[in-house]
């Protein structure tokens, strides 16, 4: 996943605030997006991610703060003079133009010869896998094709930053997954900075170099997908990104290279300082454990660093995976355990007793 991304800042967002009436859609956001990076703004609807994107595009202007793109302040710069191009959620394909005319729309001003224009359009259509669709009218395009046209139309402008506003949300699941892969490889091919707005955590995780999780107009955490998934800063982020089990416990002692934690059935364990993403004082803490970090010990001979006993209260069979809800003494909510259905492994029924194993390194302390 990791690819060399330059350390040069491409988009700098400095203390940006934007309110609509009483509502502060973006409430003091600071972030630096690097050149060539695939950056995602992830959050639930109404968190301000789309407003932030529109601020970068220039469709909205910040009430305070500043946006700098490629070293130049974008204050009072209209969208048509910004080095950004946008792929709209609805794609906004011009309905009165055909594919070729849509893609060439932004180049018309450059006064290229007909042959040059056609060569550029063909190159772009090739890139987005729409070769030979030049004369196809806009109304005769499927959702996926519209999206490719929108991409080609934006990329032909050779923007420094490509902005994508929930570009995959209108597609069905299969096509969406296919486009995720294509979009990512397209970004690698063209090397342009991509900023993607999405509410789909899976989409953000699979595609991005870095993700900014937004809640209530602010960035709650900005990190790489792995960091975000493994070390979420708080419960809200943890439950927004994937599934997380929460266990109440006590932080007993904070040492230089070990933290001592005690949590009911888990007992007292020693964990590494980086398992606490934000500094917490000793006392009551919430401990997070991902479902795949828990293992059901099917055989009596199976051993784990920490073992706890429970009873299956719910089984969800997904084909490749089985998700169990397991009730454990001293933990209020049943914990979710996911197990891969490898050959010969049985699927437990409701009511069966299970031994669950985990390692201390899978725990994360949340505020």
């Amino acid at each position, binding site marked *: 996943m990791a690819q060399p991304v330059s350390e040069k800042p491409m988009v700098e967002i400095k203390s940006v605030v934007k309110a609509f009436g009483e509502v502060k859609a973006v409430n003091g956001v600071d972030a630096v997006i690097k050149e060539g990076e695939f950056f995602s703004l992830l959050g639930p609807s109404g968190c301000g991610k789309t407003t932030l994107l529109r601020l970068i*595009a220039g469709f909205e202007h910040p009430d305070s703060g500043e946006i700098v793109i490629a070293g130049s302040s974008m204050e009072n710069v209209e*969208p*048509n003079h910004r080095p950004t191009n*946008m792929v709209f959620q609805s794609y906004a394909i011009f*309905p009165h133009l055909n594919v070729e005319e849509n893609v060439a*729309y*932004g180049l018309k001003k450059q006064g290229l010869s007909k042959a040059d224009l056609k060569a550029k359009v063909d190159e772009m259509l090739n890139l987005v896998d729409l070769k030979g669709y030049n004369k196809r009218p806009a109304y005769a395009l499927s959702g996926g094709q*519209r999206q490719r046209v929108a991409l080609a139309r934006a990329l032909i*402008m050779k923007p420094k930053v490509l902005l994508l506003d929930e570009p995959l949300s209108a597609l069905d699941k299969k096509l969406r997954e296919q486009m995720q892969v294509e979009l990512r490889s397209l970004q690698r091919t063209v090397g342009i900075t991509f900023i993607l707005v999405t509410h789909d955590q899976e989409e953000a995780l699979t595609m991005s170099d870095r993700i900014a999780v937004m809640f209530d107009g602010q960035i709650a955490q900005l990190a790489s997908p792995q960091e975000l998934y493994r070390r979420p800063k708080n419960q809200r982020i943890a439950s927004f990104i994937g599934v997380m089990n929460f266990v109440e416990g006590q932080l007993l002692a904070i040492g230089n290279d070990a933290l001592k934690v005690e949590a009911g059935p888990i007992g007292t364990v020693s964990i590494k300082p980086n398992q606490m993403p934000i500094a917490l004082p000793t006392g009551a803490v919430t401990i997070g454990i991902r479902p795949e970090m828990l293992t059901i010990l099917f055989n009596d001979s199976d051993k784990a660093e920490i073992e706890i006993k429970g009873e299956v209260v719910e089984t969800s069979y997904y084909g490749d995976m089985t998700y169990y809800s397991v009730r454990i003494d001293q933990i209020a909510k049943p914990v979710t355990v996911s197990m891969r259905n490898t050959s010969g492994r049985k699927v437990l029924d409701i009511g069966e007793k299970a031994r669950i194993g985990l390692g201390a390194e899978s725990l994360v302390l949340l505020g």
Partner: protein
Amino acid sequence: MRAPRSFTVFVGLYLLFLYAPVMLLPIFAFNDSAVIAFPLKGFTFGWFAGLANESTLFVALKNSLIVAVSSAVLSTCLGVLAARAAARYEFFGKKPIMSFLMLPLVLPEIIVGVSLLIVLVQLGLDLNVWTVILGHVLVCMPFSIAILLSAFNNMDRFLEEASLDLGATRRETFFRVILPLVMPGLMSSLLIGFTISLDEFIIAFFLTGTEPTLPVYIWSQLRFPSKLPGVMALGFIMLILSLVLLTAGEYFRNKSAALAAHENKQ
């Protein structure tokens, strides 16, 4: 669900009451008699042929065409401005302003005609085709605004943003994206404005001076019983022309709605 029988009868009577008098127009336009009365005497094209000799008729026709074309173009241009503003922007007093613009729709034309006449006379202006155009723009504009407002409202706002985003200025965006997309609405507005102006009598009657429009000419001919069948023939031609124009107008209006529906589907 099937409508009750009594409804069908009611609708039948209603349509008869509405259109039976109009049907007299073609009947007597082709009747070979100077008297407008039953029984019919025979079939003739004579009244239509006779129109060709009426030189004042052609002057009136020319006046009417000037008035109708000018009114349609002016009311459509003003309608574009008003509709665009109402569809796209929020401004102080938007609702009352729009209501006032639509008011001529329900204002009695005789009031409009008399008021304009008084104002023009007080200003010392001569009555001619231009004063008629002034009055007609007033009555055509609500129709233009209503048609164009729906055309502008149906347009996806993001298309404009996409155009700006791709480097076009606001002006270029208007001509390359907005105008082509509201074109069916524009055509519809022009045709309906033209038809309304062509058929309008009361305001034209007050403001026409010595340059009568076609309806005013027809009215002046009614004093001579011998001219009546000729007027019937002329009326028939105008009826057909109006129907053709309105049908064309509706065609463009539906096209505009269909385009919008397609655009919003995605």
